[in-house]
């Protein structure tokens, strides 16, 4: 009796196993599950019929039946997993994309090389305790010349190629500043002498001269520097500018030469040259070499300039310097021509410009590595 039923069950299991193996989809599999293990499924029904039997038979067949049930469950689960894996495989296969394509997106913009240079200067001079100040582009004759010890008839005035604005009703005409030096006067005028120890300023800005050719632009940029205190001497001028030149050009041993020169608003005055080598193709390599290249003017603030702003030159002394920013930029970054600086040619801007995330600083570097 028992063995007969066991055979029956074995046959049932075999049939179900075959149908599971042959099933083609998870819905077919679900049908098999319902037909075998569901409420009205063959196995469930069989189990239900057991109630009419003896307890001994019930026990034996029941155990057998439970074993078959779990076998079927496992078979179904395995087949289900198989379908899942197959489905995923197929899905993934069908989801393949063409990685060679790149969508179009407007490019990130650039910062102008001159802005870059100004920021590099700020980083270098900030480290020496300088801060930045500004002054107006339209100046009176007094600030641009007279206060800087350049009286009306001074030959140096003629070298300035000054732009003049229309005279006012009293005949006075303003000028476009020919250098950033007038801001020296404006900053010194603001000094409160009662509490004055020292100032250190740099003044980058636009300057103007009525000259327009391959090497001159009617508008260009300068950076002025001013240090004034009780014990500032020409040795500090030298130390400060040597440090600047070497840091800016990133050359530990860059030769820096100080040469006597003349500016009406400094005395003694010095022109500063850096070492360079002229290559056969006419290009310049900054560093050790046979040649010298003039890059900035400097000197001790002229006593008469100090007196003019009410500072006693026997108590305070200091130095000033000025440099052309286009030239510094061209030298450092190998830009051959001046004129494109103001031409807004996108091709030039993209080529010589800098990416906005590259902030020049002493810790991240001043040399535009990735730009």
């Amino acid at each position: 009796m028992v063995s007969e039923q066991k055979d029956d069950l074995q046959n049932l299991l075999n049939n179900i196993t075959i149908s599971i193996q042959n099933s083609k989809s998870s819905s077919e599999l679900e049908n098999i599950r319902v037909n075998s293990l569901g409420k009205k499924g063959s196995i469930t029904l069989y189990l239900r019929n057991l109630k009419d039997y003896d307890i001994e038979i019930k026990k034996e067949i029941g155990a057998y039946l439970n074993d078959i049930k779990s076998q079927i469950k496992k078979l179904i689960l395995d087949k289900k997993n198989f379908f899942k894996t197959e489905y995923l495989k197929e899905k993934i296969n069908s989801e393949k994309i063409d990685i060679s394509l790149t969508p179009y997106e407007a490019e990130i913009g650039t910062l102008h090389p001159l802005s870059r240079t100004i920021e590099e200067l700020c980083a270098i001079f900030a480290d020496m305790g300088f801060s930045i100040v500004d002054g107006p582009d339209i100046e009176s004759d007094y600030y641009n010349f007279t206060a800087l010890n350049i009286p009306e008839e001074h030959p140096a005035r003629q070298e300035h190629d000054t732009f003049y604005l229309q005279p006012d009703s009293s005949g006075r005409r303003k000028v476009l500043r020919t250098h950033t030096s007038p801001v020296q006067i404006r900053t010194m005028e603001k000094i409160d002498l009662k509490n004055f120890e020292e100032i250190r300023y740099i003044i980058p800005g636009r300057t103007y001269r009525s000259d327009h050719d391959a090497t001159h632009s009617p508008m260009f940029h300068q950076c002025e520097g001013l240090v004034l205190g009780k014990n500032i001497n020409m040795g500090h001028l030298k130390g400060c500018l040597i440090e600047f030149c070497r840091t800016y050009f990133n050359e530990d041993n860059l030769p820096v030469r100080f040469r006597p020169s003349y500016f009406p608003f400094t005395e003694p005055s010095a022109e500063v040259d850096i070492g360079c080598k002229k290559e056969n193709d006419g290009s310049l390599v900054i560093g050790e070499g046979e040649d010298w290249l003039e890059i900035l003017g400097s000197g001790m603030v002229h006593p008469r300039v100090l007196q003019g702003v009410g500072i006693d030159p026997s108590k305070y002394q200091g130095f000033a310097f000025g440099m052309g920013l286009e030239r510094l930029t061209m030298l450092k970054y190998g830009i051959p021509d001046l004129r494109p600086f103001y031409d807004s040619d996108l091709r030039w801007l993209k080529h010589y410009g800098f990416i906005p995330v590259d902030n020049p600083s002493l810790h991240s570097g001043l040399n535009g590595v990735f730009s």
Partner: protein
Amino acid sequence: MKFTWKWLLDHLETDKNISEILETLPKLGLEVASVVNLAEDLKSFISVEIIDVKKHPNADKLNVCMVFDGENTFNVVCGAPNVELGMKSVFASIGTFIPGLNLKLKKGKIRGEESFGMLCSEKELNLSENHSGIIELESSAELGLSISDIMDLNDPIIEIEITPNRGDCLGVRGIARDLAAAGLGNLRDLDIIFNDGEFDSIINWKIDLDKDEKYLCPKVFGRSFVNLKNDESPLWLKNRLTAVDQRPISSIVDITNYIMIDIGRPLHAYDIDKIKGTFLKISKSKKGDKFSALNGNTYELDDNMLVISDEESVDDLAGIMGGERTGVTKNTTKMFLEAAIFDQVSIANTGRKLNLNSDARYRFERGLDYTSPEMVMHYASAMINKICGGKSSKIVNFKIEQKNRIIKFDPNIINQLTGVKIENELSKSILEKLGFKIVCVENIWDITPPSWRPDIDGIADIVEEIIRINGYDKIPSIKLSRSNYIAKPAMSIKHRQTFFASRILANRGYNEVITFSFLNKEMADQFNGGGLALNLVNPISSEMTDMRPSIIPNLLSAVQKNVNLGAQDLSFFETGPIFKGDSPNEQISTITGIRYGDRIKKDWQKEAVTFDFYDIKLDVIKVLDTIGVPKNSLKIFQEAPEYFHPGRSAVFKIGQNIIANLGEVHPEIGDAFGLNKSAIAFEIFYENIPLPKRNKISRPMLKTSNLQPVTREFAFLINDEIESDRICQIAKSINKDLITDVKILDIYKGEKIPQEFKSIAIKVTIQPIQETLTDAALEEISADIINAIEKKLSGSLREI
């Protein structure tokens, strides 16, 4: 200032070679601009004798010559009119570079006759402009020698840049003096033969200046010369003048020019026969006086220009240029020589007004040696008598004695000002070699600067003289350390604002440009500028006449340029000044930007989207956000300047202050720049942004809620005229604590709703703070929103 090596050696006794001298000059402040040796160019030009001359068979004006260099003979075709048998001249063989023609000589046939070289003129050798014939050498000249040796041209020409304070170095002697002081040799004594003259001067001075105007001509000397022969100058003199770019003219003129270069002392020579009367009068001009200068131009003079005239008229602009009428010519036999001191300021003013430059003016303006007029009378006489023969008269003069300048000098100042320690003895010896006189009174020096250094007028000048000769390389280099400071930012708030704004804009695709601060009048007017106070008197071109009232026109022209170069999508910005007036507070710093073309380009994924007002609005908001604009204080109005499209532009304000203008550039202006798409621009006036009151570094405590936010969506029907954002503002105002965000999801206009209405769908985010909101509470908020919008905007809720 140009001079030659041998000229320098006339004044400097030295065993140093030229490279040592050239190395020292810049250290003294005399920057070497160039060194050229003509002999280098002339090496292959040799002396030859013309041993045969035949007419060219096919050309009337040409000759076929046979020349002999001492070894070989050459056939040369020559067109010079002065070719003569037996004449010695200069020959260049085939392959020689001819500097005056800038070409290399090739073998050639000239009208059928072979020519194996060339007989040369001075012009072809770049020696002068003379091209009237070939060079004629002395008959004694040796054959086959380099022409630079025969003509004494092997003399390097040195050009140095002289700063405006060093008038004394506008003469070779001044340069030699500096070199001697630097220890590179000794200054030779000037070879002056004193000669008091044999007769009374034919011409006399008359000073027609008021007593208080005598300073205009504190000193003038003169003397007459007779029986002169004013021929061509000797070769050595011509060579020297040519080397320093002075054109040889005639002996007298050449001598005055020579002395000007030699000792920096300008002179002027009058032809006595052409002077009307016996006086030369020094006076001030009257407006309308006319003067025909030696340069061939006629000048109309103003009042108060210092002039020299005879009985007839003005014929010399003192210190600047002589007149044509009384100038010397080759026929001059009687000459009056002038050497004066004129006021530097007066000369500078006159020269500038007349725009008349000359070597004399250049030197007068920079200051002359006050003692030079008397000395030069003798120095020049000797040279004139030697070259032109004749006799010189007694000297006539007028002079005011100059006060001695004495500067009190404490030698300790040298170290104090420069950080260099120099022994007092060394400092003294440097000054003395430069011609300074020193009297020591205790520890203070009474210093008298030399007469040729009018620029020295203070302690700092004397310090410079000492450290200049001692060497700037001896100044110590002292590190300028930050000792008294903690590290502080170099940038002010304003600089940081542009620093940050630039980066945000570049990250959003803008390229930074820098454009000129000026533009043309038409654009200035169009952008509300163009005032007289901002108009340049001397613009460099008609495109750059006015200071810009806005950067937008500059950016439009940047767009135009790039469009013309084929670019399509452009975004530019500039941080820089604009000008509302000529005083410092009318210069306004702005951040200005422009966009043109497509924001999104069509590709396989996306359709193209053009830049519009909203892109720029976002740009402006992002920038303002970064540079410290308090979000809630910003208000937007539709009242931008008229250079914007009136319906597509706006102004951001804080209170009454305009923070930014933005919008589509007015189509008419876009047209003027030839743009066929709309340009969208903004200008941010960041100086109007109120600075944070306190510079607080620490931040307020962050408060967050862990409760889920709830969202509710509504759609309202409102009048189309109403600004859509008002719905958001009203909704938000219902409960500022709980409603954290209101977004517009959709705006619909069309068939499904009445005309003149729009439907706006919004999504309101409500963030419970302490406890979850009950349905009733949420309902209440929703009802409040609906009520408020119905009441304030006459809107009605629409079923979604």
